[in-house]
């Protein structure tokens, strides 16, 4: 049967498809998506529950969202949210800057001794387990007598955001041929000008997606923040964790839904920006 298919060019693609296909794989994919999304959807739905109990469904309402912004715990969560957001912005700006320069040094250089060590160093925060980073950072700050608080959280966040910012920027830079800077420099642009006027605009989608990923990663971090924050300062995840330890309350579900939507929105932006304006659609 396959022999006849081989002779018929028209049927080739169809035959190809059926060989590729495995029964049940689509079902598993759907199941996989179901597992990934079901818990999130359930929490989103229950955040609109008009009931003090988290078990009973009491109809749809926005009361818990109202409670988030005007409830007893509003002040606490507002401060935590402000800390989270400001730390995420500062950490994302710093790590994106550091990562952009590092990507330039890595991608736009020939081979040199220690290049692979340098690559490993940049990606080290991804390799060291989070809890180990958390312990090490706490010990470090305590040993040098640095008071834990806002600044120590920020520093820790910058460190682990670097590889997340680096990866999309480096990937983008790899896709841009160096001919652009070369031409600019042939036309008497300084190296710095060639970088800021030519390479940066071309890199922009990568930089934006690196920035957004770093921002989300910082906003999401719990373990490291929990270790290095010290007393008296909370970010949203640590505040939520503290509240959840006393039981899941409906207002936590409303806050969670809001945070979830912010993350999804940012990832969507990052995805769309990252795909837009590919310069060299080279296939590997």
């Amino acid at each position: 049967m396959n022999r006849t298919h081989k002779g018929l060019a028209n049927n080739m693609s169809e035959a190809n498809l059926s060989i590729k296909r495995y029964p049940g794989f689509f079902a598993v994919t759907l199941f996989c998506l179901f597992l990934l999304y079901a818990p999130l959807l359930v929490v989103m739905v229950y955040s609109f529950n008009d009931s003090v109990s988290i078990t009973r469904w009491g109809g749809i309402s926005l009361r818990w969202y109202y409670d988030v912004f005007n409830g007893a715990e509003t002040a606490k969560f507002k401060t935590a949210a402000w800390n989270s957001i400001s730390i995420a912005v500062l950490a994302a700006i710093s790590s994106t800057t550091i990562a952009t320069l590092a990507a330039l040094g890595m991608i736009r250089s020939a081979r040199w001794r220690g290049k692979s060590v340098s690559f490993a160093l940049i990606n080290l925060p991804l390799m060291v387990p989070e809890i180990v980073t958390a312990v090490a950072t706490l010990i470090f700050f305590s040993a040098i007598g640095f008071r834990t608080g806002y600044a120590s959280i920020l520093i820790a966040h910058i460190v682990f955001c670097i590889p997340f910012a680096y990866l999309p920027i480096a990937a983008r830079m790899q896709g841009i041929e160096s001919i652009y800077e070369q031409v600019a420099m042939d036309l008497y642009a300084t190296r710095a000008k060639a970088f800021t006027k030519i390479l940066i605009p071309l890199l922009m989608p990568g930089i934006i997606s690196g920035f957004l990923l770093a921002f989300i990663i910082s906003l999401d971090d719990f373990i490291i923040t929990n270790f290095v924050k010290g007393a008296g300062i909370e970010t949203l995840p640590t505040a939520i964790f503290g509240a959840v330890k006393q039981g899941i309350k409906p207002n936590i579900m409303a806050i969670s839904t809001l945070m979830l939507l912010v993350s999804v929105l940012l990832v969507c932006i990052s995805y769309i920006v990252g795909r837009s304006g590919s310069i060299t659609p080279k296939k590997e």
Partner: protein
Amino acid sequence: MKSQSNSQQNNIVPANATFHNQKNKLLLPAWLVIGFFLVVPVLMMLVYSFLTKEFRGGVIWEFSLAAYDQFFFDRGLFGDEPAKIDWTYIKIYGRSALQALIATLLCLVIGFPTAYYIATRPVRSRPLWVFLITIPYWVNLLIRTVSMKFLIRDNGPLNTWLLQAGIIDQPIHLINTNLAVQLGLFYSYLPFMVLPIYASIERFDFSLSEAAADLYASRWTTLRQIILPMVKPGIIAGCILVFVPSLGAFLAPDLLGGAKNFMIGSLIEEQFKGNAGNWPFGAASSMILLIIVLLVLLIYARNESHAQGAR
């Protein structure tokens, strides 16, 4: 690539390495930040693991092997009995490894077919599928874990629906069980399994499965004999990417596992909380975890370069 390595031999910087001479200056910030705030802290953690504990948290600067001794040996309540191997902490590490392993297998069983299915979609729709798989990863891990806890708790929505649908007569007790932890870990790191496998299946040349089919191999034989060996690097990468963070995970075991299912993450965390902590012991436990993880990564890197050398 070829011209690049040739010119390297002649010590001439190729034209496309436009910032080669500036590389040190450009990389300096990254080296400094990561070196000073990650490498130095890890070294300091190593030092701390050999110090004496202070009772209110922190350390006394006196050399001691007490932390490692406590980890591996039992010397009785007053420390005067002959040393026996103490299994308490080794068991916690073993249990964590087992939990991480089961979570990895769960991810593989669900992740492989998913990755395969996505990789065989039309080229245009693949990024969208990949995006669908990755979105949940970007949602806060804490929120995801809390959502899981909310869903599977004894009187949670899952049990309510199953009861109402008449599938079960009694709520399934999931929370604070091993299964809940495995489920939480699986949920935390599934995309790490799907993405590398997807990447290697996408590179797979399907004319090979066609050839196999021409030679009367069944679909599943083709999968076992042709596809799986070819995409093995992707599978191994996925397993490591899931196993490593699972091993030191804190949130899933803490929120879903309860006190009975203590894992490495909680053990370490406890040493730094409040006055009951023991910093040198926490540092030693972290060091042991780090060494295990680095060993796993090293073996992986070794195999990887071997495989590349063979090709």
